[in-house]
């Protein structure tokens, strides 16, 4: 018997979206009318994915309470990798969600077409059903090109190459630049933030990001890119598997639109990069196996108008393996 995709939502588009995603991921769609229904399905087991609409913090607390009462928030039957929260809320207003043990995956449902978006997202859900959601080929059908970076100083050339590739693929200049900047951030993270010592302490926290370093053995960094005519996806891969989920999500939600950005001399990284990727229209997917591998993938849909590009359907996905 195949597993189910359990949906709770009052939004008709979410139902179309979830039905398509379930079909792509080979899951049976089960629609529940309340949180307890979702919690009971989890308690019974055989749930591959939970899609849950979140309208505000109060509703989310009720959802957590339902899970806690029927299964337990820290039960083996509860795995953040399988929770997908569908929302219209700004990511900076959802720290209650990102900090929850149930998180997960954040889906900003700016649907252009809930059907097409569901088919697209279904591949992410399908990947989340596998042992390890690694490799662009698991989420994209188009052919993947892979580049091994030998030195940190090759980063800007790689970023420029991605930009030129996108211009050749008829991306408009401003969109190509936005994607290039996202690639810059994920490569920089793989090169300077991923390396940790045996105790898990960052090795290059205070090393200037212009310092040339050879990327070999454990420090190897690879970039993968693919474009299926609609979406471009680029991954940065490192072999440390050192992403701290809590810190990462705090960074993603952090906004400096009201608060002042303070330059910290002790940290050479800026901490504004990945949050800006999501705000500029990109999806971000983190797949990380502790101690051995992290793949950070950014995805953008090609659109003619920048306004639509920036407002596109997108997600922040996390798939963590311990």
């Amino acid at each position, binding site marked *: 018997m195949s597993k189910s995709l359990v949906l709770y939502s009052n939004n008709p588009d979410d139902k179309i979206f979830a039905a398509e995603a379930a079909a792509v991921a080979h899951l049976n769609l089960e629609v529940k009318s309340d949180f307890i229904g979702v919690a009971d399905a989890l308690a019974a087991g055989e749930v591959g994915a939970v899609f849950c609409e979140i309208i505000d913090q109060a509703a989310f607390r009720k959802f957590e309470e339902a899970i806690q009462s029927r299964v337990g928030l820290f039960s083996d039957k509860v795995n953040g990798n399988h929770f997908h929260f569908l929302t219209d809320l700004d990511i900076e207003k959802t720290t209650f969600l990102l900090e929850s043990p149930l998180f997960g995956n954040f889906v900003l449902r700016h649907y252009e077409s809930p059907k097409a978006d569901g088919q697209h997202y279904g591949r992410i859900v399908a990947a989340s059903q596998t042992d390890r959601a690694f490799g662009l080929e698991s989420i994209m059908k188009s052919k993947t090109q892979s580049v091994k970076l030998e030195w940190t100083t090759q980063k800007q050339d790689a970023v420029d190459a991605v930009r030129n590739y996108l211009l050749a693929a008829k991306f408009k200049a401003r969109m190509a630049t936005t994607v290039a*900047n996202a690639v810059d951030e994920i490569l920089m993270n793989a090169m300077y933030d991923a390396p940790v010592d045996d105790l898990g302490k960052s090795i290059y926290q205070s090393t200037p990001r212009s310092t040339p370093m050879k990327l070999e053995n454990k420090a190897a960094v690879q970039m993968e890119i693919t474009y299926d005519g609609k979406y471009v996806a680029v991954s940065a891969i490192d072999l440390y598997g050192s992403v701290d989920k809590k810190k990462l999500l705090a960074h993603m939600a952090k906004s400096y639109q009201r608060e002042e950005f303070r330059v910290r001399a002790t940290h050479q990284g800026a901490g504004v990069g990945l949050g800006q990727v999501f705000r500029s229209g990109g999806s971000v997917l983190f797949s990380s196996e502790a101690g051995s591998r992290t793949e950070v993938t950014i995805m953008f849909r090609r659109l003619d108008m920048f306004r639509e590009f920036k407002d596109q359907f997108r997600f922040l996905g996390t798939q963590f393996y311990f």
Partner: protein
Amino acid sequence: MLNAAKETTDQGLVVRLSGTIEENVNFEQLIGTPPAKLIVNCKEVARINSVGVKAWIKYFQSLQGKSKLRFQECSTAIVEQINLISNFLCGGGLDSIYVPFTCVSCKSQLVGLFKIEDLKKMGMNVPELKCSKCGNKAVFDDIPEEYFGFLTRV
């Protein structure tokens, strides 16, 4: 890589930045001894990454109290940062920005230069431009509340 062309004018030293602002940028070296009046022209800044943002803020904050700072002709890449980071202008004034447009017919992207004082008068209703490629109309192409969000702060 970032380049800087310098020109002394009646208004002060004008520094025209061009290229990409990233981890290799060295503003101290590019701009030299900060003058009493510094005007930074950002027309040709194509891209800025997060380490570039950090270097930018570190440098221009260090000028506070030393130089009277103004930014002009900010590219879309710089305007994005002004909107995303509340202290990106580091106390400097802002004279003008480039506003993005897309042609409704041939989908070409173009930019128009607007003075801040004029944008404030227009609210978020910028006029259409004529496409330089096909002559049809080009409309503002970003999310108005996001692209012009900074207007309430400058």
